[in-house]
């Protein structure tokens, strides 16, 4: 049996089972969600080795041969994204076991969570343009509901704003897909790429690129389209903030952007320049806006915009080294941003506040949260030898190598600003004197600790992914798949035969 459809079957199946039985059987939502995500994390790691042995795999849904039928494509990039998503999702569900106890409807949370995960896995694994849109909507709609999970005034407002912006984004994407369909008469992504190559360059493709840039840019919260993110991400419960900031904007935004722009439409110089500019703006403005924040989760949300800027910048440089940097930074950011959001959740769990000014000296009562948060903060600011240092280094090297000296300088400066606001976070929350009202708070329960420690360990160890021998297994296939550009079509059609 082929493992490829399981990435969609397991999350959707467990979501519906939880919604059917979760209310009646106590403990089922926790165990089913954790088991499902653990299984998928295992399968995604297995898929890396599968690709190493067999090469790119195309799955024909229903036995219909593409381009007539729907296909699912597992190549280096998909497998890389699957590992990132499912590994992080497993650690987040582990954290949710204790954290979500304070909410009444845990089973509803897990249902929506697994639906969102199913949507994200679907976006990654599909080889069909319209399927990509459908899965994108599944993930997005589940996330609208999850942002409003607390149903307080602030959360509903954030969710409504997010829903309107997300709806506009989906509309742009749908219009782009419709125009591409009218141009190429096919919805299969590989076939679309082949037809577009045969037809040669056209103005319509450029127009569609702009539509996609706006649509996926909104989903990824690149700077001029970022307004929903600082409201939506802090409002959700902490595991969902981790999921949204760590994974959702990357899968729905960055991954879809990369796949469609580079593998289907082909890298166009004009679009690459736009990506460079947008990436730089988000990087700088996100960091500057983050400094002044007093709400810990809001600061992290602005920081996400800034880090997404790094990834988009590296995509715009478009050299093999830059692509490696972008992908590696994407992986690292998924890990440390999830860790930091889980830390903020742990603080909220123990103290009940998110305001940095009310905290102070929490290291004394919550040493583990403090230590893991320090590791996450230092990693995202790019302190060697933690993972963030290596990915930023690669991006800066790639910028210098391709002659973008100013951009390299800006990237270094933004890294310094990042260090500044994360030091502020550490200083206000964990260092200093413990306030009297926090004298009796307790460290968080075991599963929450475990999840944070594992994420922190990955932060420390992830630099090893660049070592020769290890790099060829995990990062290199993804880099090759993306940098192959329009050869994606040829690769897919070869493996159908």
């Amino acid at each position, binding site marked *: *049996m082929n493992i490829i*459809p399981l990435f969609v*079957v397991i999350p*959707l*199946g467990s979501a*519906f*089972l939880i*919604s*059917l039985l979760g209310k009646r059987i106590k403990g089922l939502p926790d165990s089913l969600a954790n088991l499902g995500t653990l299984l998928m994390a295992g399968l995604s790691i297995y898929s890396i080795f599968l690709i190493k042995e067999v090469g790119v795999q195309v*799955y*024909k*849904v*229903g*036995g219909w041969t593409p381009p007539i039928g729907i296909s699912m494509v597992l190549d280096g990039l998909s497998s890389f994204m699957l590992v990132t998503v499912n590994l992080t999702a497993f650690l987040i569900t582990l954290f949710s076991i204790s954290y979500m106890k304070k909410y009444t409807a845990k089973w509803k949370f897990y249902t929506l969570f697994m639906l969102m995960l199913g949507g994200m896995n679907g976006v990654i694994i599909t080889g069909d343009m319209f399927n990509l849109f459908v899965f994108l909507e599944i993930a997005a709609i589940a996330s609208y509901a999850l942002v409003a999970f607390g149903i307080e005034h602030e959360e509903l407002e954030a969710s409504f704003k997010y829903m309107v912006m997300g709806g506009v984004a989906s509309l742009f994407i749908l219009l782009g897909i419709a125009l591409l369909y009218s141009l190429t008469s096919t919805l299969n992504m590989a076939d679309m790429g082949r037809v577009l190559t045969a037809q040669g360059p056209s103005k319509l493709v450029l127009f569609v690129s702009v539509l996609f840039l706006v649509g996926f840019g909104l989903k990824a919260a690149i700077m001029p389209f970022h307004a929903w993110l600082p409201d939506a991400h802090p409002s959700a419960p902490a595991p969902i903030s981790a999921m949204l900031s760590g994974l959702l904007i990357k899968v729905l935004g960055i991954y879809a952007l990369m796949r469609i722009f580079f593998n289907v439409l082909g890298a166009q110089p004009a679009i690459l320049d736009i990506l460079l500019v947008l990436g730089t703006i988000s990087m700088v403005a996100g960091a500057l806006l983050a400094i002044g924040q007093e709400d810990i989760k809001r600061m992290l949300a602005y920081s996400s915009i800034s880090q997404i800027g790094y990834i988009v910048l590296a995509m715009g440089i478009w050299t093999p080294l830059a692509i490696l940097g972008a992908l590696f930074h994407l992986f690292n950011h998924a890990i440390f941003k999830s860790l930091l959001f889980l830390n903020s959740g742990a603080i909220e769990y123990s103290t009940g506040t998110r305001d940095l000014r009310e905290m102070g000296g929490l290291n004394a009562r919550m040493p583990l949260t403090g230590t893991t948060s320090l590791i996450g903060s230092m990693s995202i600011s790019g302190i060697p030898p933690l993972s963030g240092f290596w990915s930023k280094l690669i991006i800066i090297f790639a910028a210098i190598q391709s002659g973008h000296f100013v951009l390299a300088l800006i990237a270094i400066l933004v890294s310094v600003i990042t260090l500044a606001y994360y030091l502020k976070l550490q200083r206000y929350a964990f260092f200093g004197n413990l306030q009297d009202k926090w004298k009796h708070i307790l460290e968080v329960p075991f599963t929450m600790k475990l999840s944070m420690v594992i994420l922190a360990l990955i932060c420390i160890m992830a630099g090893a992914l660049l070592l020769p021998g290890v790099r060829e297994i995990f990062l290199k296939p993804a880099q090759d798949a993306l940098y192959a550009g329009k050869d994606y079509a040829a690769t897919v059609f070869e493996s159908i035969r």
Partner: protein
Amino acid sequence: MTKNSKGMTLIVKTITRLTVGLILLYGIYIVLHGHLTPGGGFAGGVIIALSFVHLMLAFGKEVALKKVSRPIASLFESIGALMFLSIAVIGFVGGYFFLNFFINKGTPFKLFSAGIMPLCNIAISFKVGAGLFAIFVALVLLKIDSEDKER
């Protein structure tokens, strides 16, 4: 008049009593002939949900909720989704996800034909019908809650 005071006037109630069964039957017809005629699981599911919505509009929410309560609606919704997924997964028997696993697919344009298509339509109609009805119920209950607070 005490019992019948909820809902709309006698004229509407009488007309509803006559038409609601027909609407439900028409919805079921659309679902079952989804693979032969225009329509299908989604359209049929919407019509089935509308028949209950119709009941609720004419007679008030108690009457409709006695027929289909909120837990029942959410149960049917989950069952519909799981049924659709199971049909897809049973395809693994023949080696492929979503494989049309019936060997004898019947004569084209007959009611029992097209393999898994009618089954998929039925699953979708469960999901859509129960889902739409649940959304309507949620809106109605929310409205009543907010009216209670204003008083």
